[in-house]
């Protein structure tokens, strides 16, 4: 079933967005907005939090309570918001640099707490906003402005780290399958606890042109070809492949609920 993006959920006066032609981020944002529409949650109670970078700009375009935070810190801001007012539905848009590099510590600890929020990581393997530097998820051997002779570090697997850190819903999909991505985001929104959806996006301008993926359609095709369903490979992480699917979906006591239960016991 196809869900239309309600124009009411977009701040049309702030469009067009700043993303480059051929960028995959619009596909991810579209999936987020359709998932929100399908979830039927009260729009006034949604707080859409983002960090710094290309993905971080998404908060300016959506018509909810929106917060564009500091580089790496969206999960810490989001923790304060959710704990201060548990009625609010917190959705975080972040990128591979924002979440896994400068925000890595907050990522691990927010997942560990299993606090109710939905995190969508726009993973495009690169620092796009600053002009194409290597990121924690840049594939081995890839060329960036700061790895002019090829990346020699192993890439970090964001979903794998989320699972290890205690996230209770983790899924990964690429922009080649936007409707599956949308379904995972919807599952994450419905899920009570810390949910993380890794949306593998594209960056033709900064990543593609240095790595033989300058054509946006070919880039998406490449993502599709590299995708391997989790149900078939039965392992979360594969070198040179993108394992896609739902990795974790478990019921576990949620942090905010636990905290407010504790208050009832302590209160004199």
């Amino acid at each position: 079933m196809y869900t239309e993006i309600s124009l009411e959920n977009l701040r049309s006066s702030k469009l067009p967005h700043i993303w480059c032609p051929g960028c995959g981020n619009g596909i991810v944002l579209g999936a987020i907005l359709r998932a929100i529409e399908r979830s039927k949650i009260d729009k006034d109670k949604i707080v859409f939090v983002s960090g710094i970078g290309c993905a971080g700009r998404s908060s300016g375009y959506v018509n909810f309570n929106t917060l564009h935070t500091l580089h790496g810190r969206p999960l810490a801001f989001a923790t304060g918001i959710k704990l201060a007012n548990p009625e609010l539905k917190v959705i975080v848009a972040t990128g591979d640099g924002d979440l896994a590099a400068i925000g890595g510590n907050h990522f691990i600890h927010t997942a560990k707490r299993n606090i109710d929020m939905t995190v969508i990581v726009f993973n495009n393997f690169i620092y796009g906003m600053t002009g194409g530097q290597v990121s924690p998820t840049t594939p081995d051997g890839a060329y960036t402005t700061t790895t002019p002779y090829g990346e020699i570090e192993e890439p970090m697997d964001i979903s794998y780290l989320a699972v290890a850190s205690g996230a209770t819903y983790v899924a990964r999909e690429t922009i080649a399958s936007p409707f599956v991505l949308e379904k995972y985001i919807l599952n994450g929104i419905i899920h009570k606890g810390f949910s993380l959806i890794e949306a593998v996006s594209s960056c033709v301008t900064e990543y593609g042109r240095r790595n033989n993926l300058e054509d946006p359609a070919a880039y998406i095709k490449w993502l599709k070809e590299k995708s391997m369903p989790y149900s078939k490979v039965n392992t979360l992480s594969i070198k040179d492949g993108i394992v896609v699917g739902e990795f974790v979906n478990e019921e576990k006591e949620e942090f905010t609920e636990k905290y407010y239960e504790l208050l009832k016991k302590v209160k004199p």
Partner: protein
Amino acid sequence: MKELVISGNDAVAYGAIYAGCRFFAGYPITPSTDIAERMANLLPKNGGVFIQMEDELGSISAIIGASLAGKKAMTATSGPGFSLMQEGIGFASYSEIPVVVVDVQRVGPSTGIPTYPAQGDVMQARFGTHGSHPIIVVYPYSVQESYELIVEAFNLSEKYRTPVIFLSDEVIGHMREKVRLTQDLKVFERQKPTVPKEEYLPYDPNYDIPPFANFGEGYRFHITGLTHDETGFPTSNPVKAEALIERLHRKIYKNIDDIGRFETFYADDADYLIIAYGATARSAKDAVIELRNKGIKAGLLRPITIWPSLEKPIREIAEGKKVFVFEMNMGQYVLEVERIIKRNVEFFGKENGELITPEEMELCIQRSL
């Protein structure tokens, strides 16, 4: 009214609860940790939230988020953590989100001497972040004043939509004194918008301090650390950027008389004026008494508001007097005093973990006679 013998750090926690603080996020660091410990005990009893975060970057971010969701929020730290919090203080200043940051100073730079007092963060409290923004910084000199001044810190923060830095030091934080937990202090609540939701501007140019809606109340506004216009959305228009930075400064400096606090002690007829704050002001009071006993007309001006500067009171009170500045650093506030009174000032400072004693102060003044 409850009377207790408690530490300055505990008094900060009790005062914060009285002021309506219902959210604390922090990370342990000597000599501020007992504030977090006390808040961990008090907040749940008062229906509030305490969370120990993974670091100081997370702590300052979490309290900003909590404030946006409608809670009065605080964190407490010391020098090394205060350095990490600067990015968040800049964010809260620029996007005008009320929070209170307590910095119980210890010897620095770097890890320094964690258990000994210093006053080396006076300039960091003012200029620690990048970019230009005013800030309100207050500093008590006793346990009783720690209780009352933290209430004032929350009031100023909510009233002026700004982070307020509450400086303390290892002596004030760990010293125990009798405190009256006064229950008749005024508590200021955030000014809420009254316009229809679709007309709300988070940075309404008709106000120096625009009314502030909470997230979740139906206003659906945008907050960013980018330069923004009255709608809250990013702009790189120099006219809009100018309007924002100008208003940020105006809202504080225009209200300096409302914000500024100080105490004088035998200052009126003094020939020799000591300017000292925090723990150093306690030594200074003893020095003034000793010098007066010897027939030397000494007096004290104790700034309670450190920033914005008490320009008018300092200029007026220092008029015709020889001025001495004592502080537990190698010369920070003295620069501001010299800037204000435009003449040389006698300075004595150290940051070796020792208090400046009354005897050292007397010696300084007697040598200059």
